[in-house]
């Protein structure tokens, strides 16, 4: 049966655009459905991309030839490398974006994909054929037009059952000024999917012309010339500065005076908010003894006077917000252009998804982004990429690119979501990645682009550039295999121990005082700087990576032990009620995944192993 499209993506945010784009790059016919096509690629919250853990995700999506890295560079008015003083594996690239430029870049990139169609309309409901109630057959639009497809990716963000709160005000919608997808929400609830509520918030937007910048400390853009995307060689947008203010005792008093009018504290919001990105009233309530909290004043764009005050997300009434803002240094005369608000929205318990973000129990239904209980553009984009590749791989009957916890933050996130579920909006942190020494933001391309190319997800331009880099990389690697003695290095003025003997240049890199530039001396200038830095870091942590290999092999062995998605965990003796509940909710794909589920003891694991082996024997005997 021919369908209108192979894949329909609902939602034009960071998840939806990446999902649509990767499927189109792989060569499938894709429709991207959005309420308003001018809003595609909009940054709905802070005008920043990247950060700790998040910067890794951006680079990884970029390694798959995704949109977010390039759009970041096309829009960046401020670059900052977080954790610059710490080890490369935890450094987080972050940019401030001009909203208009970002959106424009996303729309331009989408426009260049021939088999991607943008359709404006309301996604009213999933379309099913009467004889196949669990096989998705397309999408019903608000005007009752049916678009048929083999798969649908839901990337509806906060629009699913979205409800806005500001003081005593209540609005239905996903963002201020936009409608909410209520019908779809009702349909999903009706389909017995595990749906619950989360909340997030956004701060008021300030009028930069009313801020007294002379009283504030500035934070200029980094001097270096690194970029977010490996497909952007230089910074193209004029750079702006950010500034910093602080809350103070007066601010805190004002906030306390309004707490009883906050929907958060009045008990009107049932959904749980992000612990790592709390509202200002939450911070005051929980850490009231602190003298002040830092507030970053971030420009929203080159030709915009709007300022985003990062750190004071709030749903307090408008009059309290105004007083609170004006109590801070430099903001005494400041006007609020749009007050902050909280959004409560539906999310699907991600434990009902498999590792390609397909909804178990359905055929052809995928979910990506905030709908899965995450927060952040980067987390959304990465999930969009996975869901888009998942749907495409399924349709083409080819395997998913082999991402796992040892090779990407993307897989760490997917694994966390689908195994553990969420109790608050999920945000990426480097601490979540146990193998983070090998997951640096500077080696994302080396880690992932080869598998992206195999999956057909990479367009020609990047594929060519990558091949060229591979050649340089292997040339530099063989150069680093040359050996040099401690004596020679000491003569060169490098402080190493005389008795260290002779070893390869690469092995010398494990000593923090030895730099690759020193080792290569004269010919260091003939290599690209980013390549030098990447291999230098490879050398720094090589001994630790070798030590982790045994652990990774152990895990690989347990990954070979597949667990049936139909396994009856309640029939396994020795599992507590709580364990059975967790295992049944997330249905781990193999024993290694089961071992990662919180609260699963080694004893429980042994019992599952035995059960799985027996089930396998039973299957063999039955056959």
């Amino acid at each position, binding site marked *: 049966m021919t369908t209108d499209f192979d894949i329909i993506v609902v939602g034009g945010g960071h998840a939806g655009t990446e999902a649509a784009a990767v499927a189109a790059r792989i060569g499938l016919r894709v429709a991207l459905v959005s309420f308003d096509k001018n809003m595609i690629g909009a940054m709905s919250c802070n005008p920043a991309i990247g950060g700790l853990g998040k910067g890794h995700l951006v680079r990884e999506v970029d390694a798959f030839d995704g949109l977010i890295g390039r759009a970041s560079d096309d829009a960046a008015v401020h670059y900052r490398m977080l*954790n610059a003083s*710490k*080890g490369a594996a*935890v450094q987080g690239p972050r940019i401030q974006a001009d909203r208009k430029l970002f959106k424009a870049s996303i729309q331009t990139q989408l426009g260049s994909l021939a088999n991607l169609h943008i359709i404006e309309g309301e996604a009213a409901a999933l379309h099913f054929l009467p004889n196949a109630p669990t096989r998705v057959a397309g999408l019903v639009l608000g005007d009752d037009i049916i678009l048929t497809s083999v798969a649908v990716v839901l990337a509806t963000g906060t629009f699913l059952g979205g409800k806005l709160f500001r003081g005593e005000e209540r609005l239905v919608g996903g963002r201020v000024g936009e409608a909410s997808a209520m019908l779809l929400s009702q349909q999903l609830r009706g389909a017995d999917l595990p749906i619950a509520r989360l909340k997030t918030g956004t701060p008021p937007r300030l009028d930069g012309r009313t801020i007294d910048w002379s009283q504030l400390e500035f934070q200029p853009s980094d001097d270096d010339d690194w970029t977010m995307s490996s497909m952007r060689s230089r910074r193209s947008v004029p750079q702006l500065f950010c500034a910093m203010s602080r809350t103070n005792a007066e601010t805190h008093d004002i906030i306390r005076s309004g707490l009883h009018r906050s929907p958060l504290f009045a008990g009107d919001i049932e959904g749980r908010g992000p612990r790592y990105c709390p509202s200002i009233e939450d911070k005051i309530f929980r850490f009231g003894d602190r003298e002040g909290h830092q507030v970053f004043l971030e420009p929203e764009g080159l030709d915009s006077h709007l300022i985003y005050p990062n750190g004071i997300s709030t749903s307090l009434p408008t009059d309290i917000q105004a007083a609170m803002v004006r109590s801070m240094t430099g903001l005494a005369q400041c006007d609020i252009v749009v007050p902050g608000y909280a959004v409560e929205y539906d999310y699907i318990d991600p434990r009902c998804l498999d590792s390609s973000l397909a909804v178990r129990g359905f055929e052809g239904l995928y979910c990506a982004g905030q709908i899965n209980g995450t927060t952040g553009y980067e987390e959304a984009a990465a999930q969009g990429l996975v869901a888009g590749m998942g749907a495409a791989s399924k349709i083409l009957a080819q395997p998913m690119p082999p991402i796992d916890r040892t090779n990407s933050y993307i897989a760490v996130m997917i694994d966390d979501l689908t195994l553990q579920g969420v109790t608050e909006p999920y945000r990426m942190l480097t601490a979540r990645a146990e193998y983070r020494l090998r997951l640096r933001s500077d080696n994302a391309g080396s880690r992932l682009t080869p598998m992206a190319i195999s999956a057909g997800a990479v367009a020609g331009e990047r594929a060519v550039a990558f091949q060229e880099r591979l050649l340089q990389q292997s040339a530099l690697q063989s150069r680093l295999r040359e050996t040099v003695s401690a004596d020679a290095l000491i003569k060169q003025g490098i402080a190493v121990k005389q008795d260290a003997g002779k070893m390869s240049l690469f092995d010398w890199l494990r000593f923090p005082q030895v730099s690759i530039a020193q080792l290569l001396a004269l010919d260091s200038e003939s290599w690209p700087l980013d390549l030098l830095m990447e291999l230098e870091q490879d050398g720094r942590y090589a001994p630790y990576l070798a030590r982790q290999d045994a652990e990774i092999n152990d895990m690989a062995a347990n990954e070979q032990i597949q667990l049936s998605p139909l396994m009856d965990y309640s029939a396994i*003796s020795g599992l507590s009620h709580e364990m059975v509940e967790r295992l049944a909710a997330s249905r781990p794909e193999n024993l290694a995944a089961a071992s990662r589920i919180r609260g699963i003891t*080694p004893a429980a694991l*042994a*019992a599952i192993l*035995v059960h799985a082996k027996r089930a396998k024997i039973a299957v063999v005997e039955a056959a």
Partner: protein
Amino acid sequence: MPSADTIFALSSGAPPAAIAIMRISGPSAFDILQDLAGRTPSPRRASVCTLRSPVTQEMLDQALVLVFPGPDTATGEDLVELHLHGGRAVVRAVENAIASFPGARRAEAGEFTRRAFTNGRMDLNEAEGLADLLAAETEWQRRAATKMFGGAFSAAIEAYRQDVLRLSALTEAELDFSDEGDVESQNNILITDGCAELQQKIVQLLASPPAEKLKDGLRIVLAGPPNSGKSTLLNALVGREAAIVSDIAGTTRDMIEVPVSVEGVALLFTDTAGLRDDSADVIERIGIDRSHAAMQQADILLWLGPEGEGPIHPNLIEISAKNDLKESLSKSADAIFVSAQTGAGVSELLHIVAARAKTLLPPPDQFAINARQRVFLDDAATALVACGESEDWLIIAENLRQVRLALDALTGRAHTEDLLDTVFGKFCVGK
């Protein structure tokens, strides 16, 4: 080890005996009892039942029956105990009757305990403690095993684990949040001190003498020139004629080992070939080489040669043997004077050896650490040292992760099948 099987085994000593206790554990345990006894007595109450062959209805035995419904049982499963008359034929007949049920089979070594572990009734250290308890022959072994079986060791490891988690959390905050302006960054000292402190605790634990000494016995080696009375003294110390005694120098050629328990402590007395340089006998020379090796491995060395001429050893006791004869060596008052012939000084020597041995063994209020546990504790201590040596937060975090892995492996959180087989293979059938 499919847990849907019902396993059974004789859990008491080999028949014939007054009573033989048969244990049946698993999902069909109660069904089997119902068929054998014609009824299932009320739980946890001793009841007398007539057991009959399910095929011929012929009476097998009159037994005392105990029924324990899972999961609150030793194995975590339904469990039945049959207290039979302890004749070989009775036991065999009942075993055959049970084995005829589908899904019932004889238990493998350690399988009851393994099920207890699988069903979360005990962790790996407790299981090892139980194995040691069953094997304990001396009072000190019993106390150490009880400590391990009772979970005190596991509790200590869990406390360390909590310490590491706390340190890890501080480190991670430094890595993930310190650049966001809202986290105080004064964790350096807290973390370095915390690592050093925890490392000290683990090193202290590691310094305690190895559990193997407690189990296998301390090696007490008797050494000295030929004909100095070693073999005679050995026989007197162990209370039997274990070694051949003659006046001919070089009678003892190979080592003779005799295990005994003295004052609750397991000791392994070793008699060695007399030391001399001029032996032309090839076999005696080999024996003398072995004597040197034995002296090196000795925990306590009883030196019967001229005073001060023995090897350098931290626990050397000077012995003046043959104290009833004129030819006895004259030694200073620090030496122990014994006469194997008259028995004078022998019990005093045993007491001194036992007292010295106790200083070399884990005291009863402390854990004895076995080789498996030692490896992981060593790993943890090494990684903690590395934490203190690095200024790179990433490396500190990675080392703390290694510490967590080592402690998890210790309690069996991160386990492999091999490890489990090793631990449970030590049990006899029926446990």
